[in-house]
């Protein structure tokens, strides 16, 4: 029974892996060959196709982390804690990508590396919150208290993000709103490239979170077995 489930989930895993690889190939082709070079920004504009989907993948990661944490606090099942850790780690990774690619774009587009815009500030603070989460979890093997503490932090962190966004927005705002209700100012090939990239990054985020959660569960299991062995 367990074996059948395992082989079922590994088939699904392989399927997602394959489609993500294909999607990434298609994305790269569309981004660099099909989509036109933007007139004012030049080749730098291509960052956009990786920057925006990374930001979106970051929110997937943090959302998964908060969800896993919430269920963990209620049910106390280590499975959900593993999901929380995986989401936080993958989210922080994508956050780092966003924070690295963003300034490269900003320098060309706005002439500065950094500005206190709602989205920039929210991303930076989200990164700090979840970096604290990871720091908390990385101190030795986390006990029950640390796990619960981190879970609370992940939930609070996610709830906090809209507040950060809104308050900075009131304070100031210059970020380009490329995707608006009206459709923004993109060529249709650019839309294709962006859409494919979104899909590819979704696949990547799912794969990474899945793999990380599996590792976390195995690490937990190993620690439990070792404990049993020592105290037998």
């Amino acid at each position, binding site marked *: 029974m367990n074996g059948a489930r395992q082989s079922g989930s590994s088939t699904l895993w392989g399927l997602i892996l394959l489609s993500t690889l294909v999607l990434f190939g298609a994305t790269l082709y569309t981004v660099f060959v099909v989509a036109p070079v933007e007139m004012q920004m030049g080749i730098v504009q291509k960052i956009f196709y990786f920057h925006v989907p990374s930001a979106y993948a970051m929110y997937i990661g943090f959302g998964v982390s908060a969800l896993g944490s919430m269920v963990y*606090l*209620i049910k106390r099942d280590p499975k959900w804690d593993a999901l929380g850790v995986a989401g936080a780690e993958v989210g922080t990774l994508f956050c780092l990508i966003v924070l690295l690619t963003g300034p490269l774009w900003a320098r060309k587009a706005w002439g500065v590396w950094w500005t206190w815009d709602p989205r920039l500030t929210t991303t930076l*603070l989200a990164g*700090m*919150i979840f970096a*604290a989460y990871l*720091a*908390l979890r990385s*101190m*030795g093997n986390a*006990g*029950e*208290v*640390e796990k*619960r*503490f981190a879970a*609370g*932090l992940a*939930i*609070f*962190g996610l*709830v*906090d993000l809209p*507040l*950060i966004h*809104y*308050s*900075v927005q*009131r*304070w100031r705002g210059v970020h380009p709103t490329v995707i608006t209700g009206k459709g923004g100012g993109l060529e249709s090939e650019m839309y294709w490239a962006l859409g494919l990239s979104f899909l590819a990054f979704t696949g990547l985020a799912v794969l990474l979170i899945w793999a990380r959660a599996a590792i976390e569960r195995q690490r937990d299991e190993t620690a439990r077995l070792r404990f049993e062995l020592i105290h037998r």
Partner: protein
Amino acid sequence: MKTLRPAWLVALKDLRLELRTKEILTSTGLFAVLVVTLGSLAFYTDPVSAPNIAPGVLWISILFCGILLIGRSWSLERENDAIFGMLLAPIPRASIYIGKSLSALVLLFVVELLLVPLCLVFFQIDPNDKLLPLIALVFLGSVGFVATATLFSAVGIRTRARDLMLSVLVFPLVAPALLAAAVATRELFAGASLPEVLGWMRILAAFDLLFIGFGLWVSRYLLAEA
């Protein structure tokens, strides 16, 4: 009622303890004077730019003093494992959270009574007509901060590296409250009308309510005995 009365007793216990030892208030009060003095020394240039800088110094000082105060308040519970006495008591977990928040808030207000006037004097700001909105801002900002920091130090005292971790965890979380409070205070000092400041107060109030409500809900899970 079943939650509020035990909460009141927990707060009363903390305040009585403080009244007898005066340990938290002396250390935090001295620290407050120090932070404001150093902040003024570092940032003050002339009376014209002072109203722009003072709110930042004021709110950073409040945050630093608050985190010190709350850390002290919970480390008292850690000594001799006093926390287990409270956890064993037949009261809701939320009461412990509310009680500790309440006592920390009262102590923070006492420190602010020293901190805010000092900041105004050092930066040569005449608060005359802005006193009420300023008090309201300080109140709202402190409530949100204490509600967040108390919850996390409650769990944090039982983890390793608590004091450092507490500030690393709490400061990014309270960033929107700090921003709203500092910007509102700056606008207030620059002579903004009440409706303009009221918008910021609404954000602060939303932050407060959200985090208090969330704290009440999560404290049930976070404060359980491990």
